[in-house]
């Protein structure tokens, strides 16, 4: 293995190294206190994020199985950052947990899988990466070992993941049968949009739709989100979804480029369905985790709108939005996680009057919800605007109109939570909560991220300058 290969694989190697360090710590120093492990891991993850900031050249390894470029390096680093944030936010929950080292090993194994998946240049590699991440994720979602709901969530996750993987695999094998190759570049030259290939495409698309929980493939989402421990839910909704979207654009833009006319209409349908179904179901949820689950279905619909743009602006806006989504959604889940860990309350009704005793926490929640709803000056506004701007590039204004109306609908349920926090006065509001240092750092990062990512135009310009390489090969 040459030095250049090590350099282009450095993010994967780094994450794997952390897993091994944890293994040594677990086996060699059994009586280590939980707090120490948490601190060490968070430092390592921070180092990982900083290392990831070094740019990377365009390079291909393992006969085209693995490829990387500056945008992919950035995407991976965004996932690194999200993982760090999840880890910081989970501090309260993990401190009382007996299996901290295992949690991180599983988490990082998942991350490694995602990295290989994003970097895949071959459908086989893609599938391997995906499966490497799916199985630990299922274990993670049952990590609240005492709760029955958690095991139930994990079970549902495994079943739906297996089902979607089967769909993907079937599609991939059909595609192999049609073209005799699994390589992205070669595939795109051999596709012509025949009915047979279209069938393979639909299967692959369904697999993807399962993974990003786009309607009508979203049924697992709410139950799994509700059953899993909150940090795992946060990880699922942000990192897992982000990673799948990253590879999804590549597969669509590179492999299925010759079939763009075919997938355009299907994606419009998928996007409209996801937004509408997600929003309508979110309207009546009483539990915050379920509300955020359905909101994440709706957000998938919005991201799909950017994907539909199938242009450089579309690609950039998707990556940009996922960055914003990392900050916004993790901040929201962070608050939920903190409150759930300290009081065990997870319903919207329980949040009434939160503002009386927890001002900072309430504002974090409000800002993140406003960002999710796409209200300026938060970054969510810019993210949504650019997604729809890219989506309108094809001139489909009816579609954009539906999307814009959906933003109004979604505002209602986000405002419901804000209303509960700020306006309602219950007999017994949640008392003053103690926010430990680690989640505090994470909240600051998230809020700063939400405010800066949008207002400072540089972030988008940077992402835009990196994107657009997908048409290259």
């Amino acid at each position, binding site marked *: 293995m040459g030095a250049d290969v090590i350099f282009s694989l450095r993010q994967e190697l780094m994450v794997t190294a952390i897993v091994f360090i944890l293994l040594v710590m677990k086996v060699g120093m059994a009586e280590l206190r939980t707090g120490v492990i948490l601190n060490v891991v968070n430092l390592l993850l921070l180092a990982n994020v900083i290392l990831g900031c070094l740019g990377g050249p365009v390079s291909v390894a393992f006969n085209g199985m693995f490829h990387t470029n500056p945008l992919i390096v950035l995407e991976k680093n965004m996932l690194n950052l999200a993982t760090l944030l999840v880890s910081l936010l989970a501090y309260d929950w993990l401190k009382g947990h007996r299996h901290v080292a295992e949690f991180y090993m599983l988490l990082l194994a998942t991350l490694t899988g995602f990295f290989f998946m994003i970097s895949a240049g071959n459908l086989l590699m893609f599938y391997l990466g995906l499966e490497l991440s799916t199985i630990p994720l299922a274990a993670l979602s049952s990590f609240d070992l005492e709760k029955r709901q958690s095991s139930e969530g994990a079970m549902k996750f495994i079943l739906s993941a297996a089902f979607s993987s089967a769909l993907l695999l079937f599609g991939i094998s059909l595609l192999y049968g049609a073209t005799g190759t699994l390589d992205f570049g070669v595939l795109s030259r051999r596709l012509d949009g025949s009915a047979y290939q279209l069938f393979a495409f639909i299967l692959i698309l369904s697999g993807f739709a399962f993974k990003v929980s786009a309607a009508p493939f979203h049924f697992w989402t709410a139950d799994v989100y509700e059953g899993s421990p909150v940090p795992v839910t946060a990880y699922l909704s942000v990192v897992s979804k982000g990673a799948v979207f990253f590879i999804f654009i590549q597969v669509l833009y590179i492999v299925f480029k010759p079939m763009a006319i075919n997938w355009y209409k299907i994606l419009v349908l998928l996007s409209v369905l996801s937004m509408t179904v997600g929003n309508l179901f979110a309207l009546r949820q009483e539990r915050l985790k379920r509300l955020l689950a359905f909101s994440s279905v709706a957000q998938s619909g919005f991201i799909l709108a950017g994907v539909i743009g199938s242009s450089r*602006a579309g690609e*950039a806006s998707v990556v940009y939005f996922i960055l914003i989504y990392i900050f916004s959604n993790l901040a929201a889940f962070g608050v939920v996680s903190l409150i759930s860990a300290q009081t065990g309350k997870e319903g919207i009704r329980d949040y009434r009057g939160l503002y009386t005793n927890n001002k900072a926490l309430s504002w974090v929640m*409000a800002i993140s919800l*406003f960002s999710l709803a796409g*209200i*300026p*000056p938060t970054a969510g*506004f810019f993210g949504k*605007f*650019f997604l*729809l*701007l890219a989506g*309108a*590039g094809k*001139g489909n*204004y009816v579609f*954009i*109109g539906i999307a*814009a*109306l959906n*933003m*109004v609908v979604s*505002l*209602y349920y986000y*405002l419901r939570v*804000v*209303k509960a926090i*700020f*306006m*309602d006065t219950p007999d017994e509001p949640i008392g003053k909560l103690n926010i430990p240092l680690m989640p505090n750092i994470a909240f600051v990062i998230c809020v700063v991220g939400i405010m800066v990512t949008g207002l400072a*135009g540089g972030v*988008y*310009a940077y992402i*835009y*300058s990196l994107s657009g390489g997908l048409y290259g090969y």
Partner: protein
Amino acid sequence: MNLSLLILAPLITAVAVLFCGGLNRIRWVSLAGVTAQLALAFVLLVLYWRERTGGNEAAMLFQSRFAWFPALNIWYHVGVDGISVVMILLTAFVMLAAVLVSWRIGTMVKEFFVLLLLLSAGAYGFFISLDLFTLFFFLEISVIPKFLLIGVWGSGRKEYSAMKLALMLMAGSALVFIGLLGLYYSVGSFDWQQISRTPVPVAVQRIFFPFLFVGFGVFTALFPLHTWVPDGHSSAPTAASMFLAGISMKLGGYGCLRVAVFLMPEAAKEYSPAIILLATIAIVYGAFATMMQKDLKYINAYSSISHCGFILLGIGMLTQTAMTGAVMQMISHGLMTALFFAAIGMIYDRTHTRMVDRLGGLLKVMPYISTVFVIAGLCSLGLPGLSGFVAEITVFMGSWQRTGGMYRLATILACASIVITAVYILRATGQTIMGPLKDPKYNGLTDASWNERLAGILLVGGIVAIGIAPYWLSNLLTPGIRPIVDSLGKAINIK
């Protein structure tokens, strides 16, 4: 002058308020902040005047721009002309008065003033934007402060009203958003001046003009999308009502005129009858609906629908005089309605009721507040010498310039609505202000405190200044209206 100062001033004040301790310090810092806003607005007015008299003929002055999202051709681009300067001045006036009457706010004082200041920053940003993306950004930025101000500090069905207002305004924004995308993909830019120089294809205009006009129209209580106005205005705390009716509703009128009509003149001509129809319905319906109200705030809210109908009527008539009148009506209504809400707030603070039938004889115990109330009422019904008369007569004269049965009918109906206005205003003032004291417990009530007096003087001063010497105002507005008239003149006649 660097126009971004107008946005920065409230933001800096808001940050300063955040770090203040103590009730009094928060109030005084906010007051200092809004006074600085007014000073800035006056400096802007003087500088603008000097440029114009110095012979600067450029359409937009004090422009500055930098690329915000260069990849998408989105700029932060600001500049002002006469219309914007006047709107900025109005905002500064209303903001100062709003802070002055908010002296009695007792709960979460810090948050209240910060949100109020954020609202004003959004309004300034909106009025100086020359890039439609920036404009949209500032249009939507007010959703959070409005929602929280009404929901937390409001009265009555406040949560319901706050939610209704936020959702309806967001729906308006969504329509504006679609219209903007249409323009963007037709011209390739959000730049207001560039779009105004590029003829937008008539087919595009025909589709997207309604989106823009109706979208902005929601903010200006365009019938039948006015339903957020009564609930929102009457539930909001005094300062927020003043801002909502005084400034926020004007954002819509400004957008209709500046963005929809100016950038799509052909479609404006084509849709003109529809606009006039809706505006006339709003005027007449609003006036009749007001007659049925018993709550002072509802009276003012419904009369706002009627008065904002004049704005839309003036814009819909598309003649220079009518459009000038529409902008004058924006200013006049902004000052008058803010004054009205301030007076109602003062009365409510003391008597704890806003119901007309429970009030009476207030002139005896609070002469100052009652006088202010009467002045606002007289301005509302269009008494010569006050701004309402000037604005309305200009709209009517401009409307009469359009010949044709339908336009004449609309003008006559609008004129006739003034009679109804007189009925409800005189009845309300008569019942609340005049007559014997209704309730003996009102005997011990105090008159306006110094801050309330100051707020009253400020707004009454504005109303009278326009009423007596309207010429300075129309002089300011004409150069801003003329390009719109020119573009309408150049527009090919479709019919």
